[in-house]
């Protein structure tokens, strides 16, 4: 097991109201090379879990362990290794790239600060290689990201995260802000990278169709609790909890006959 999250709870201060508990006893594991989907409605605590996994915030209770490192209390060399091996891609492709840095600086920053390449020239070569790998033109290396499209920016974000060869990539709704046509490209790229680099991916989404394509394991979250988790087949073909069933019912179904039947069923339900 690469990372284990063991019954963590997290509250946010909501002064003057009492602190609001948004995660209750959440437990989940990430294995090497696997893609996990974290699904749930808006406000169910998906991003909060992602931030805990990235050590951006600390849960008050429970433990997070990454490859022998106690993530919540990690310091020094442990923390450095954790920072090198667990990376992320955010939802907002505009706010997540520093506008004052060129593509080369953005992608090369991890190499620089973790001293993974001896010289600037070697870094530049690695950046170029990485850009090709994610489908960007290395000639754009010296440009700022202002004029790039959302899809290109997400590719830059992915290259920036993956150039230092992390073992876990946490993606918080990485395609939610993209055009539908671009979403599939980015998803395919992530899947590609997962296979090529033996990368574990934690994929946060409220779109089950995306998760179905990418993730072999799925965790369903509701009001800060894990209500169901299992393999893709278990969740999609035989959901146990009513909440999961209602989530699945909201997924657009490509087959018009099934879709029509489902809409009819829902009309009946509301009529009664």
């Amino acid at each position, binding site marked *: 097991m690469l990372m284990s999250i063991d019954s963590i709870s997290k509250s946010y201060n909501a002064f003057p109201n009492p602190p609001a508990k948004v995660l209750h006893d959440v437990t989940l594991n990430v294995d090497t090379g696997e893609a996990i989907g974290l699904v749930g409605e808006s406000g169910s605590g998906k991003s909060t879990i992602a*931030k805990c996994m*990235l050590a*951006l915030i600390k849960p008050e209770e429970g433990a997070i362990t990454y490859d022998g490192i106690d993530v919540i209390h990690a310091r020094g060399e442990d*923390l*450095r290794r954790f*920072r*090198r091996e*667990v*990376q*992320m891609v*955010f939802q*907002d492709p505009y*706010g*997540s*790239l*520093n*506008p*004052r*840095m060129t593509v080369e600086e953005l992608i090369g*920053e*991890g190499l620089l*600060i*973790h001293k993974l390449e001896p010289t600037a020239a070697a870094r530049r070569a690695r950046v170029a290689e990485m850009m090709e790998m994610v489908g960007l033109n290395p000639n754009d290396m010296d440009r700022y990201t202002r004029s790039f499209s959302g899809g290109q920016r997400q590719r830059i*974000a992915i290259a*920036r*995260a993956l150039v*230092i060869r992390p073992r876990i990539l946490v993606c918080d709704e990485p395609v939610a802000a993209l055009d539908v046509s671009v979403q599939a490209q980015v998803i395919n790229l992530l899947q590609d990278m997962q296979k090529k680099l033996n990368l574990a991916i934690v994929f946060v989404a409220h779109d089950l169709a995306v998760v179905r394509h990418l993730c072999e394991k799925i965790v369903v979250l509701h009001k800060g609790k894990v209500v169901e988790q299992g393999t893709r087949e278990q969740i999609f073909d035989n959901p146990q909890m009513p909440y999961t069933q209602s989530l699945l019912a909201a997924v657009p179904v490509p087959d018009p006959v099934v879709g029509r039947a489902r809409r009819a069923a829902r009309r009946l339900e509301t009529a009664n």
Partner: protein
Amino acid sequence: MTAPAIAQPAARRKEGFSAFEIFVFSLVVALLAIAIFGPLLAPDSIYSSDIANSLMPPSAANWFGTDDQGRDVFWRLIVGAQTTLLSAFLVVTLYSLIGVTLATVAAAGPRWLDEALMRVTDIGLALPGMIVALGFAAAMGASLRSAVIAMAITGWPITARMLRGIMRQTMEQPFVAGAQVLGVSKWRLMTKHVLPNSLDVLIVKWAGDIGTTVLVLASLSFIGVGAQPPSAEWGATIASARGYVSTAWWTVVAPGAAVAITSIAFGLLGDIIQVRRDPSLRGN
């Protein structure tokens, strides 16, 4: 058939500069050019007195007349422009550096340090800056250097307070969390990610600050704690000429107008830059 009217003119007006803006820009450029190159052109005679020619009214030979020492008022203003503007630049640069440093430490540091620095800043904001600068300058011994140092060490609170607020906002941006996840040091986080995305406001503030500083610096010199005669600094020039207001008005009016025009020109430049960055302020 007529083509549909497109609202081009409005868009174009936003790009171009108004006559007033061009006027202000030219004025500032002219002042800077005078401050940089003027002294190279000045005749040596302005440094020596020629009592026989003292207090002559403006003429073709002495455009703004002569002062009590018989020196040409116009050329002394030109030389004084360099002293005045250079000092103002120095003051603003120094206190901006202090402000940026304190804001960065406050924004990056632990809560208690932030609180402590902001309380000190509040005190700094509450004290009348010019009076404190006057005290400092007097304590260090009246000289232009004392005035510059005094203004530099009293001028930073507004910059520090403003910038610290903006840096806190910048730190909420996702790319800052991204840099943390990547594992950048606190120093790199602040200098490479937070500061460069927070400094815009200083660039806007800068021109207006020069305008204010020119005025305060001239005032300190006029009161006697800044530049001392025979310096050509404008405040000192007004001070040494004030006995002749009734008999030779040009000796006072010329440097007075120079101070007014310069501080207003830079103040207007500051306003123009600010409105251009945030058009919603237009009309205020």
